[in-house]
């Protein structure tokens, strides 16, 4: 259990994980459910338990589309996407742990890809 990181993530997210009643609606409505090792309800539960390390290492951090479906549809207003974001920030804020670097960008481009995709990916994946 990582008390220090747990506190940082809870504060940064602004989420009260204790409000979760484990109904699973966030994961049921998540468009990335099939791509995730840990699903939105598990992020909330594992942060509550202080099980931060497995989340920090998981590719699931980079599968969240920030579509706010879980935020909108949670019957308890827990806002799981904010927990996912706080954990992702805790990961990419570590030295040398950016998920995307400028050198990787040229290979990802095509003639139609909007800037919007690039700036959004940088905001999500890089510090």
């Amino acid at each position: 259990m990582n008390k220090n990181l747990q506190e940082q993530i809870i504060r940064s997210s602004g989420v009260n994980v204790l409000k979760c009643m484990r109904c699973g609606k966030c994961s049921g409505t998540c468009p990335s459910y099939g791509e995730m090792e840990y699903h939105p309800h598990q992020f909330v539960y594992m942060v509550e338990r202080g099980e931060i390390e497995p989340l920090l290492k998981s590719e699931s951090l980079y599968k969240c589309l920030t579509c706010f479906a879980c935020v909108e549809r949670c019957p308890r207003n827990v806002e799981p996407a904010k927990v996912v974001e706080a954990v992702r920030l805790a990961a990419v804020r570590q030295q040398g742990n950016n998920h995307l670097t400028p050198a990787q960008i040229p290979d990802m481009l095509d003639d139609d890809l909007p800037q919007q995709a690039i700036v959004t990916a940088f905001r999500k994946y890089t510090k």
Partner: protein
Amino acid sequence: METFTYYPGCTLRTKAKDLDTYARSSAEALGISLVEPADWQCCGGAYTTAKDEIATKLSAVRTLNAAKESGTALVTVCSACHNVIKQTNYDISNNDDMAMKVNNYLKLSEPYSGETTVYHYLELLRDVVGFDKLKEKVVNPFKGKKIAAYYGCLLLRPSKALAMDDPENPTIMEDFIKAIGGTPVIYAQRNECCGGYITMEDKAQAAKRSGAVMDSAKDQGADMVITACPLCLYNLRKNSGSDLPVYYFTELLAEALGLKEANNE
């Protein structure tokens, strides 16, 4: 002529010129003057919800403050800019700690605390122009065309900050379609995500998501899909594998108003 501050955002300058050009020409025809603020910055594409992030919110505050200083409401048209700017405005109005940190950094002549009213272009049509008035100005109605409105995620959610429409049963784009003489098509995936920026590193997921959206629209008999988002347009056109045409809503608006040739797809 009523004047508004108009924020185009980075993508409307390059890959999404049609979204921008036809928004401007249509506004002029509808008696709305859109004035671009000097030296605007990219909104960042995605709102950072974390409470301890300040720098990533500053560009949106600068835009909001530019509108405040000019004494006009702010109009956005790209779904992502709209989302970032409205969420920033909501948080700076409701989170004193964030407002204090932002203002301590920016040192504006007067602190910014959420004074600006933000309209998405669709809200401008609904709330300022009025869909009835728009209907009267239509010269080329989309008669008999079945048009599927794609909201995606960014136009509606989180609804407490965006406050644009019912997040699960929206009507604003369908009402727009009716105003330009078309027939709206309601389909299950209209407010589910297209995959967004995941196309950068996981084409398969982007294909799965955007394909689900397009199949859902096609199953309900749509002739075309319209969107307000450059990244949605990209995913729906390039990653979905569907042959259903996708346009910006401003293209249809300009066509209906007689300002643009018809699309030939």
